[in-house]
């Protein structure tokens, strides 16, 4: 079982589930539905790419859902104030980066446990979004802005193209730059990296900032898709992103960032949600099935890690 990497099993599961859902619903296995799955999965995948990099470094960011909400509100406020699309998007990305920076400062400078630091930030930022909006959604944006979430280029949704660009950029960072190597090294042995003269504070900060930017970009897609900014828009985004990253093969305790795995896992989760809807299965089951998949992924990941560890023990006296 462990001869193949986890993304392979994600791919196999995706194909198997696709066949299963196509048996349940004649509408599942069509080109248009596949495009729909890509479109629906794009927001989760974009958030999950940033999350993958942070998890690889043995960190976590529970505040991404709140960041999605706040960035939406920032954009809505600016558009309502008459700002153009590009400055609005830039402001959202900057907001995401600043929130990521704040997370990094808590983790790196104040040495707060990443789970607790970002859990607190989730409440602070999410609470801030509710206070500012008084819980009321802001809606009604220009057609230019809505095009990002609803438009198509060459038959493909803009959102899925943006998502592909983020996946490509994330994969490039993970595979071709020092940041990817150091993310894996921080997850595997941060002290080793420090002893080799690498500023782990700097690279950790960059990772959290990138995670914030990914959440902001997801917010751009979501807000334009919904044509409204809601203070609770990013609910469960963090959980889905963590599940996607782990399902894709990035170890929850840190290690090599598997961006391709994250992409395929995002598609798998999209297939499950879409397939259940088309099969007419209650939305309550969707959450249940997603939970089962996450559980299975974590068990597989954990067993794989233990098996590797036993193998290492066995080879020690080789």
């Amino acid at each position: 079982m462990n001869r193949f990497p986890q993304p392979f099993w994600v791919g196999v599961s995706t194909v198997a589930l696709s066949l299963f859902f196509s048996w349940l619903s004649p509408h599942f296995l069509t080109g248009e539905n596949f495009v729909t799955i890509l479109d629906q999965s794009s927001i989760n995948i974009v958030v999950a790419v940033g999350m993958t990099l942070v998890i690889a470094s043995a960190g976590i960011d529970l505040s991404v859902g709140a960041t999605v909400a706040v960035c939406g509100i920032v954009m809505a406020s600016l558009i309502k104030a008459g700002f153009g699309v590009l400055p609005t998007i830039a402001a959202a990305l900057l907001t995401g980066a600043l929130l990521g920076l704040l997370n990094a400062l808590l983790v790196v400078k104040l040495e707060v446990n990443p789970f607790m630091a970002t859990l607190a930030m989730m409440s602070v930022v999410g609470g801030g979004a509710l206070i500012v909006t008084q819980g009321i959604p802001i809606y009604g944006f220009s057609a230019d802005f809505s095009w990002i979430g609803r438009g198509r280029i060459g038959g493909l949704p803009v959102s899925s193209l943006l998502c592909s660009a983020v996946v490509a950029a994330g994969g490039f960072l993970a595979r071709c730059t020092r940041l990817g190597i150091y993310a894996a090294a921080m997850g595997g042995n941060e002290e080793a990296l420090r002893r080799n003269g690498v500023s782990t504070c700097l690279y950790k900060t960059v990772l959290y900032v990138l995670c914030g930017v990914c959440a902001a970009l997801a917010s751009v897609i979501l807000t334009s898709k919904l044509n409204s900014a809601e203070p609770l828009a990013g609910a469960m985004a963090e959980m889905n992103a963590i599940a996607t990253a782990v399902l894709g093969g990035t170890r929850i305790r840190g290690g090599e960032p598997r961006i391709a795995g994250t992409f395929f896992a995002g598609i798998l989760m999209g297939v499950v949600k879409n397939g259940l809807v088309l099969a007419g299965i209650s939305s309550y089951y969707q959450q249940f099935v997603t939970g089962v998949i996450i559980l299975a992924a974590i068990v597989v990941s954990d067993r794989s890690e233990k098996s590797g560890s036993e193998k290492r023990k066995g080879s020690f006296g080789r």
Partner: protein
Amino acid sequence: MSALTLHDPMEQVLEIQALSKNFGRVEVLKGISLSLCSGEILALVGDNGAGKSTLLKCVTGTITPDGGVIRLRDKEYLSLSPRRSMAEGVSAVYQDLALVEDLDVATNLFLGTEPLKAGFLVDRARMHAEAGLRLKELGIELPSTRARIADLSGGQRQAVAIARAVMQASGKDRAGIVILDEPTAAMGVRESELVLGIIRGLRERKMAVLFVSHNLPQVFRIADRICVLRSGEMLWCGKTGDVSLQDVIAMMSGSQPVNGENTEGTGDE
């Protein structure tokens, strides 16, 4: 000349004079003096609490001494930072090896100094080629530079850690000092032999090796000189052939008064 060979034979690369360190009221180092030359293996022995680790950490810059001088080649320091120590060509391999198990051999060897192309892209092809070359120079045989550390045996991992230390310590204007803390701890006979062979190879490459070990038979097999520490004092320091294993054990345990040549000893004598 190979990239990992440097220095004239027996050039003095490290000199410690009257080094002292207190932790509160406890005197951990009491005026320690010693020297180390290129192409030499110097073993530091002593019971737990003798001050060996503190001495090593003063040289690697992780502990600031209270008194004394550390001279690296022609530069004199009252204290060193880890960065300065590394820049001067002092590199240490501690027992935890500081390797990243998820990463491959080449990436571990170049961790922090990865070769780049276009200013920001990690040049993996060059990294693997150079890693293979360096390992070959040191006589280290591994399945591949692409093998993950997690898939290597204990001895192979130690070999990678030593190779990395050698690479960091080598180079123009660098002291070429490799510090090894218990390099064969928890290893079987075959694995230990592999590591000892690599350490011997460092002498041939004119590296200066300062190593700590509790395994006295191994110390007697590979060290050129031995320094015995007890309770922060340098009891004896001299050539391996000038002392017996029993004498060293007796000095370490305090059951026998110090005799024989003490070439360096304490600075406050």
